């Protein structure tokens, strides 16, 4: 008779079976990876996510504290001090955060490139959109590799030296080895060339200042040529970028307004992610972590050079202390500013430097004189007596014009110059000078990467 109760067993099994289906739950708050890209509009969203990764804020910050643009304030509680004092190691920090950031950007664009050809376009317009997105993504990969290259390669330019691994597809378990500087440069050149050859990418920042244009791409070509010492290439690309941009150098009130993001006079390409660059150097509560260095302040003709007023605010009560106010806030928020990815003034400086190096001192002087005449009231044109003098003055002009825009440290690095700070900018001589070509110019590969990637080798000295 007991066997009759076996009837309950199928009932239990039935319950079990129906419950198996009940376990098939899907997340409501995130998108299953297989469903992320299904149409051209999704691709567009993916593209903007890649642009969102291309935030040069970290470079702006570290280039300012690694070099001679800043000094540690009394109110600093430790922020950025290891970096400022060149005491960093492979441990994660602001000094090597770019590694994860730009590989993340590269992985994201690879994920889109992997599926883009299979995504159907509804009409001709979408076909063109797809085409442009694909070219932009490839170009952005070159730009990401440029950022990685300048941070992690050794100082100077040695094509045989180790740079960063070239990764060309998304792979969670990849353990790539480092490629050489020459190989990475070739990759960047080829990626940028895709963008330059894409007719769908507009010539200048006419329609969308946060999206790539030919002028911006040419600017990266010019930077890379300058890095390689390809002076004629740098001159050509800089000229192309200037011509394609349709922009002119700002002066007077326009220049002051420019930093409040009230106009786009010199902008060729920018990052607009509600960034708060001011808080790199200043706490949200107003505590100052880093002040402008005395060395930098001393470069300026305080009365006539409008850049002094645009870049600094002097504290009238405490003798010669100042705040970095190149990012004074905008109409979007008191600390919110766009970050300039490519600005016109830099291209004149690139062309001037390349012209000087190529021996054309008058062309170099013409670019420098044009820039200075826009910035300095009552400026009198100069001419250069020698290549050395010209280069020195141009590098110094870059120091002044492009301070707090992420260049200074990398200019010194590429030219194999030392970082030399004023004694008044440091509390100890231990961190007054970083000798030319020092190992610390090549930033350390993050500890995490060393740990997770058995094919990775660290830069010397860490």
């Amino acid at each position, binding site marked *: *008779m007991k066997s*009759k109760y076996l009837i*309950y067993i199928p009932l*239990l099994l039935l319950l*079990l079976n129906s*419950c*198996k289906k*009940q*376990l*098939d739950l*899907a*997340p*409501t*708050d*995130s*998108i*299953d*990876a297989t469903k992320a*890209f299904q149409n051209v509009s*999704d691709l567009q*969203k*993916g593209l*903007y*996510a890649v642009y*969102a990764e291309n935030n040069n804020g970290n470079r702006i910050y570290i280039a300012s504290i690694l070099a001679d643009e800043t000094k540690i304030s*009394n*109110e600093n*509680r*430790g922020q950025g*001090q290891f970096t400022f004092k060149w*005491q960093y*190691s*492979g*441990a994660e920090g602001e000094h090597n955060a770019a*590694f994860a950031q730009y590989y*993340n950007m*590269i*992985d*994201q664009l690879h994920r889109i490139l992997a599926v883009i050809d299979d995504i159907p376009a509804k009409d001709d317009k979408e076909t063109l959109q797809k085409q442009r997105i694909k070219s932009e993504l490839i170009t952005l990969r070159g730009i990401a590799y440029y950022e990685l290259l300048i941070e992690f390669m050794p100082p100077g330019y040695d094509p045989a030296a180790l740079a960063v*691994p070239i*990764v060309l597809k*998304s792979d*969670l*378990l*990849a353990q*790539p080895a480092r490629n050489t500087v020459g190989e990475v440069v070739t990759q960047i050149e080829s990626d940028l060339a895709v963008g330059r050859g894409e007719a769908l990418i507009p010539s200048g920042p006419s329609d969308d200042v*946060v999206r790539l244009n030919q002028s911006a791409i040419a600017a990266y070509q010019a930077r890379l040529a300058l890095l390689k010492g390809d002076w004629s290439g740098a001159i050509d690309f800089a000229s192309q970028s200037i011509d394609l941009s349709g922009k002119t150098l700002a002066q007077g009130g326009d220049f002051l307004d420019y930093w409040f993001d009230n106009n786009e006079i010199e902008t060729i390409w920018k990052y*607009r*992610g509600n960034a708060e660059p001011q808080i790199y150097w200043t706490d*949200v509560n107003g*505590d100052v972590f880093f002040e402008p260095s005395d060395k930098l302040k001393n470069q300026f003709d305080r009365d006539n050079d409008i850049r002094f007023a645009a870049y600094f605010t002097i504290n009238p009560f405490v003798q010669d202390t100042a705040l970095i106010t190149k990012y004074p806030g905008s109409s979007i*928020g*008191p600390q919110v500013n766009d970050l300039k990815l490519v600005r016109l003034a830099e291209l004149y400086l690139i062309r001037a430097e390349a012209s000087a190096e190529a021996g054309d001192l008058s062309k170099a002087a013409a670019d420098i004189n044009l820039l200075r005449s826009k910035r300095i009231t009552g400026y009198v044109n100069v001419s250069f007596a020698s290549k050395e003098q010209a280069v020195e003055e141009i590098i110094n002009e870059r120091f002044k014009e492009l301070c707090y825009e992420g260049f200074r440290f990398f200019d010194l690095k590429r030219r194999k110059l030392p970082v030399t700070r004023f004694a008044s900018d440091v509390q100890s001589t231990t961190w007054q000078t970083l000798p030319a070509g020092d190992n610390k110019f090549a930033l350390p590969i*993050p500890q*995490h*990467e060393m*740990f*997770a*990637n058995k094919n*990775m080798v660290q830069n010397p000295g860490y």
Partner: protein
Amino acid sequence: MRKLSLLLFCCFQFFYVIAQSKTVRGRVADEKNNPLSGVTVSAVGAASKTVTNVDGTFSLAVPATVTQLEFSYIGFQTATVSLQNIANSTVMLASTTTSIGEVVVTGYTTVKKSQYAGAASKVTKDKINYIPVASFDQILQGRVPGLLVTAGSGQPGDINTRVQIRGAGSISGGTSPLYIIDGIPLEDGNFRSLNPNDFESVDVLRDAVATAQYGNRGSSGVIVITTKRGRAGKPVLSYSGQYGITQPGKEKFDMANSPELLQIQENIGKFINNGLPGWFYSPNNPRYATLPPDQKAFADHVLDSLRSINTDWKDVFMRDGNFHSHDLNLSGGAGNTRFFLGAGYYQQDGIGLRSDLKRYTFRANIDYSDEKFSISLSSGIGVGKSNFIESENGIALANPFAAVYLALPYQKLYNSDGTVNVGGGHTGPNAYDRVTNGTSLNSNQVKANGSLNLNYNITNDIYVGGFAGLDYRQTINESSVYPNTYTANTSDFPTGPDPNDPNSVGQGSYSTGLTNHFEYVLRAFAGYRKIFKEKHDLDIRAISEYTYTHERGFNYVGYGIDPKLTNTPAGITPGDVTNRLIADVGGYKTERALYAAMVIGKYTYDGKYTLNASFRRDGTSQLPEDNRFQNFYAAGITWNVLKENFASSWNNFINSLAVRFSYGESANADGFYFGFFGYLPTYGAGTYAGFPTTFPTNAGNTDVTWERIKTLNLGFDFAFFKNRLNGSLDLYNKKTDDNIITQQISYTSGFASIPVNAGVVRNKGVELALNGNIIQSKSITWSVGGNVAYNENKVISLNQVSEFEQGTELVKVGLPLGSHYAVKWGGVDASTGSPLYYTKDGKLTSVYSDDDRVAEFGTYNAPWIGGFNTSISWKGFSLQAFFTFQQGFKRFNNQDFFQLNHAFVLQGYNVRRDMLTMWQKPGDVTNIQSPLYQRQFVSKDIQDASYLRFRNAVLAYDFPANLLNKSKVLTAARIFVQGQNLYTWTNWVGFDPEDNDNIAQYEYPTPRTFTIGVNVSFR
């Protein structure tokens, strides 16, 4: 139709069996001859059973062969009585005093402990009820061997309690036990709306056999709460009330007073020129010599007047709070039905300004049982309303418990006109204004749980049943920054002033956040229970269970608050492009489902040997489809040694002796560190420059599978000297295989890590519980009891790596979890004042480097934990004292970093008096470096936090029955005074050595509470 005939047939069979039987009648009562209803009466050697009626009577038809009946009831010793001793007389059951006779509540059923191979401990209501602590998990501290309970906060209603059973079993995942109330799984941590005074008992299940029914979620142990149920008879109304105060304890360090702080400022000023008054006005400042005489006199005057101000910020921010609680219970029953109704009110003021908890709870438990059916309904609802301080535990000036110590003693709280002295750098007044005037933060929680359990006996041997239970919580957190207060005016836009309008003031903000937890569980079960030939006792049950969890929440912050409509959404100004007061909104929802099918069985031979075994198949939606279902099993045996012939002469001094051995596996479905869908590669939505974006958010790993926890347990239960000394000893080895940890992957993948099953953690240890009745005479009794547990936690393997960092800890093979990781402090160089550190190779250096961190400073998981108590009673008086301890663990003392750090002096904060010993000139031997060097987190900040705490004391008087009988109103009356958290012995230099994590920040300290109370039952 066929089914129906089947049922009829079996009913017929049933009556047929009865027809051959005889009927036994009797009555069951407790030691005081009060009738006990609901006592299970079963025939020994046959399947017949029943339960007693409200008046304690029963009648049971048993086969003619039966000679003995067994009586079992929760809280009483099970008795086996021969029929001739029963016949129409009263069977008295003795309440449980020895451990071995107890029953264990495993959730769906109760098991006699003598027939149970699992490791389990019971905490009875006398240790849980009427303790002046809101959250019951904190009440369990020290009561159960191997149960680690550390409260993270003394704030009423705070939920930051860490509970661990037998050490941390998971490296990255959850290590909290599963909580069950009347069969319903409870959401971890949210206990402030549960009333512990409604609890009858709490069982703590510690090994795989004990947790078999909850195997998919039970790997970290299970805590089973049984609420009070009705007792038969005329309804009894009882009231319990307490009134008292809560007080701040005393911290074990001294902050600088005004003259000392000014001195410290001057000492630092000699190295670093600064504008702090102690240096700026100092005669030793080179500036002073250049001043004209009148300004010199002014400087002297300023210093003198500052020295004379000594604001006691502790007095400003802390207070004595009120405490009271009231409980009204009605319990009774008639016929086959019993009920328990309870209502409770609990109110506790925090020792910090503004913080409090008010709790309203209701409970209704109803039981019906007859020979065929039993039905139990359990339901509870609680509303907990709390006001909180801001930034609790945070290093933030909004946290009053940080402000107390950071505030300057030479600043006054009030201006001469009576307004609060707010302003830049006025840490104390600003924080005071913020908590009393500038902001609000409150939390309103509703928690409801209910269950219905049905059991139907198809035959004497076979039963089927179902269970449905749900746990629901809704929490609404509300906070405000009031408009045009100092707090609002110094906030960022949009809470603060509009930067584009220099005349604007802070318009404030208002936010509401709602979180919602909903879980239900459905069980169907069928069982078979029979005793064959009087010696073979078999009990087997098949269960199928489905659990569904849903979490959701949303929050918004609105701006531009109308000053006449504060603390309500009605006061929010709708945002637009012009006023830019755009509200922030956010939210989430997610779900999870578990399925389990299991068979759990017990077989006892002749009362001597018991085999417990379980097999289960578990599935969860939290894992990829291919790995979703896994099998787990557990088995254990118990040997009652005294039932052996050779032990028959031992009775003289051993009263019971049982050996338990068990081994089994369980899983950790609540402990997936990656949440409900972490295995799945996913994308999220965002925005850039005004355009929508899609980007990868989770790497996922579709190969990940269950963590497996394997527990081996060897236990002994014993009682000696006429049960005067009894206890239990357990040895265990708990190994977690396939730990889900984050495997670090190359950044070139776009992610930093993926979850993988790698790594083995082992917890092994010893648990001892002892109780002794030292004096047991008619008028006086004195007993002592206690428990101690030692747990050794060790990472055995991490597969591809040997170590990785997790926060400030190092997870490393061979070390326990929670191992601190820091650079070893080498003292201060007496000649230069430079701090010295040890490199990894043990060399002294003055250069700090993260690379020199080592993990040789212990762990924050205490290896030794326990508690002990003693109680003395004489006539109606009784005195109980209870102590808890944790030994051998270390915590990061972050307060040291702030309070012994020149940088915080320079930023205008107060520091500890010890800063006077800062290095100042060559030859100074001190542990506090020159201010020219940056203060780092180092090993000297990792400090021993071992403690012994006088946790609770109660002095009570029970009025004698003869006196109460005269009153004709009361049947029982007790008055008592109680103290909670009376004293702590520790070397820890902070507020409270007890905390739920590895780092001491500015926690809300645990208060000391004194209450007086009464418990009365009405006639």
